[in-house]
């Protein structure tokens, strides 16, 4: 079937596009490693003061840090994946050409972003994680099943991450400029994904709220699945629910947006 091959080719293109910039990838690996080290020390101090904060021991908190650094670029926590391109195409009107193509807009960008995510995971994510496991005590499972469970959680996290950013990108149909929404997504992404502090260590009602938002599917869920802190099926259900909600919303927004597209001549 042709469609499958088309999207596979788009995904491969997304992978290759990011694989081209080797120096940038190395630089990213270095930066994530440095930030990981800084975070590990602060977390160790925090967990020293308050053992079992959020149900983690020190080794689990350290594992959380390095998984976060590993997934930071993969899930474009701070933004900066396909959505900047899509926003620019909407702003300039090039989107009209995309809508003419015999391919689905949402699937096209999902495939492209999937290729990017896969490269970022392999090229940029794995090394800081391995570095962390070599130099700091981590709580890594030894059975293959836990790692397989992590892979499924990652796949769902990639879908959720795409779903969030697709909605943000389509908002440009109405906003005309993506600067404000990008900034908002950056703040929400860093804070609500648990990039700064594990979500289970957030206090009170704030903790309950952030753990229910879709961003919780990105780092918290994969971390808890890897370390056996939650039943994988519960985590998958949470992630899949948000993925379906977000992707459906994206589809509805897409059809609403395309109905109002007026291509400017000139």
């Amino acid at each position, binding site marked *: 079937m042709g469609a499958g091959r088309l999207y596979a080719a788009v995904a491969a293109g997304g992978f290759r596009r990011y694989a081209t910039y080797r120096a940038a990838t190395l630089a990213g690996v270095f930066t994530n490693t440095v*930030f990981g080290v*800084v975070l590990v020390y602060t977390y160790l101090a925090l967990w020293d*003061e*308050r053992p079992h904060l959020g149900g983690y021991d020190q080794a689990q908190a350290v594992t959380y840090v390095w998984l976060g650094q590993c997934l930071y670029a993969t899930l474009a926590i701070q933004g900066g994946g396909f959505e900047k391109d899509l926003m620019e195409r909407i702003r300039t009107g090039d989107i009209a050409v995309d809508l003419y193509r015999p391919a689905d807009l949402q699937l096209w960008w999902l495939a492209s972003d999937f290729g990017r995510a896969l490269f970022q995971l392999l090229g940029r994510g794995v090394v800081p994680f391995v570095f962390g496991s070599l130099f700091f005590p981590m709580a890594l499972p030894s059975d293959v099943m836990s790692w397989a469970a992590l892979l499924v959680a990652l796949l769902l996290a990639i879908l959720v991450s795409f779903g969030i950013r697709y909605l943000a990108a389509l908002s440009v149909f109405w906003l005309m400029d993506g*600067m404000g929404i990008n900034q908002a997504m950056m703040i929400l992404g860093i804070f609500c994904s648990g990039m*700064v502090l594990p979500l289970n260590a957030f206090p009170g009602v704030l903790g309950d709220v952030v753990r229910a938002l879709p961003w919780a599917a990105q780092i918290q869920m994969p971390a808890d699945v890897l370390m056996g802190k939650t039943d994988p099926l519960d985590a998958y259900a949470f992630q899949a629910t948000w993925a379906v909600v977000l992707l459906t919303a994206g589809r509805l927004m897409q059809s609403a947006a395309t109905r109002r597209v007026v291509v400017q001549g000139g």
Partner: protein
Amino acid sequence: MEELPRWREGLRAYGMIAGMWIRSSMAYRASFVITVFGNLLVTGLDFVTILLMFSQVHSLGGWSLPEVAFLYGLSATAFGISDLVLGSMDVLGARIRDGSFDTLLVRPAPVLAQIGADRFALRRLGRITQGGLVLGYALLHIDVNWTVGKLLLVPVMLVCGAAIFGALFVAGAAFQILAQDAAEVQNAFTYGGTTLLQYPPAVFGKDFLRGVTFMLPLAFVNWVPASYVLGRPYPLDLPAGAAFASPLVALAFCALAGLAWRAGLKSYTSTGS
């Protein structure tokens, strides 16, 4: 006599280019106000993290919240100043790649001034404001027997800290001439540096501390002088008077960064595109 006019020429070029970018950002006033506010929020997240941590504990590495806020305020404000003045340096790599760096070289103004003022963004006042507010809070709440020396150290830390971060930006720019795509390495030192200095030195491992005290002198932005102000022992053995060494360290570091920049500029070969 030769150096002084060149200095002033650089400052004049910097002022003109920065002024141009300010006028350009003021063309959309509402958008400008929103981005300043957004900048305040983004940079404030770091402090929110510290507040979240202190909602669970009473001290971190033995330091209280006002003391950590003192470190945070100093680090964020000093970094904010250098970020405002030189923060757009990370576009240098992109300029080299697309060939527009060559344009800067043929203009009759110092390249460093041109690249420093490139895309000058007044919205970066957000970080300085936010850091300043936290510093104000800290100064009101820390328990210190103020002496003239300690009082003087506060502005000295801000100025020298900004100079040390500024030197990092310049050294990073020189590095980008060699490795154009690797602009992100700079972030590890600049953003990583300011994040690191927001936490008490006692939190970090000894080897790590030695690295950022003796090799990359980040500790002189706030850790060493602030430990003296707060009357806390610095985790490493340092000679007496080290708390007052920041100006010397900043000067030496700036000179080294200047040399690196010159060497980088000399080794530059255009992409030809």
